């Protein structure tokens, strides 16, 4: 641990605003250290039969996320569920879901949380960290985002969404909640789930609406499965 980072520069006792700032900085540092301690306490290889709370939490998150994502064919609900996953399970504070526009060759934010939607740009494919991540099809995680704070051009996580082998959008998180400022190892599993499941869930909701289908009937199914 960097002792200088923990203690910070000396503060003159007669300066209340500096003292307040120091208290806030130390509180934030305490939260960071508690998170680090919680991670360090998770055994790398828990013995058979021993509960691993972080692993259990990860499995429970994955189960609920996939259950809820596929429990609706309403597009708004799919987007809402995704925001809930980002906020409640991953601790995102500012985030957005982008969908690719082929016409404009850019990524369009379709839902934004924690930010004024007008503040969020439409990155062109291949441009900036978001556009580049989507063009390459690789998720990008920035471990130092918490130290930097909100920087619209440098998200903490950008996860491209796949559909039928193509990149059709992205989930982007810029900042996380103060009590969970960094991405944890298990978070990546949940991001992977969104990368694989969100686009199909959105596509299914769009197709369902367009087709005007009201229910599932064997007559509709038999041609497709026989």
């Amino acid at each position, binding site marked *: 641990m960097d002792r200088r980072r923990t203690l910070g520069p000396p503060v003159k006792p007669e300066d209340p605003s500096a003292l307040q700032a120091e208290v806030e900085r130390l509180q934030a540092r305490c939260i960071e250290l508690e998170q680090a301690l919680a991670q360090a306490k998770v055994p790398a290889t828990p013995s058979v039969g021993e509960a691993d709370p972080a692993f259990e*939490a990860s499995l*429970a998150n994955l189960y609920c996320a996939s259950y*809820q994502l596929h429990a609706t064919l309403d597009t708004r609900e799919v987007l809402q569920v995704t925001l809930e996953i980002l906020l*409640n399970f991953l601790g995102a504070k500012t985030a957005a879901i982008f969908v690719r526009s082929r016409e404009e060759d850019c990524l369009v934010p379709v839902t934004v949380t924690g930010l004024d939607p007008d503040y969020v740009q439409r990155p062109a494919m291949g441009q900036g960290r978001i556009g580049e991540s989507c063009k390459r099809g690789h998720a990008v995680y920035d471990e130092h985002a918490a130290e930097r704070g909100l920087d619209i051009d440098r998200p903490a996580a950008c996860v491209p969404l796949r559909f039928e082998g193509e990149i059709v959008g992205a989930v982007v998180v810029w900042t996380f909640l103060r009590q*969970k400022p960094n991405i944890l190892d298990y978070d990546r599993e949940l991001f992977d789930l969104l990368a694989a499941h969100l686009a199909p869930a959105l596509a299914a909701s769009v197709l369902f609406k367009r087709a005007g289908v009201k229910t599932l009937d064997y007559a509709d199914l038999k041609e497709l499965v026989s």
Partner: protein
Amino acid sequence: MSGLRALVVEDSPTMRQLIVLALRKLPGLEVVEANDGVDALKTLASGKVDILLTDINMPIMDGLKLVKRVRSDSVHAAIPIVIITTEGADEDRSRALALGANAYITKPIQPAQVTAKVRELLKL
């Protein structure tokens, strides 16, 4: 443990499912759900509740108003209340505890953290 009933108050179905999933690991604990504070008060009026777990930010009636209402109701004033919220600031925690909440858990949660707190408050 038998015959105990927990009420989970949360407007997000995703989060509610996670909390309910965690609590169902506790044998003998029946879990009932409510979507907001008003919905929770109806459930409280209609049956026994031994512990209440609530979010803060909810439509219609938020979690803090719910805590206040429960604590001012002579029938339910002693029910242990756990706040589960994204609000991680110290002042939010202090406010909730001052209103009468027994515990304050910030999201994202670990299911084990929630079950441990319920066990502690129900003295199981």
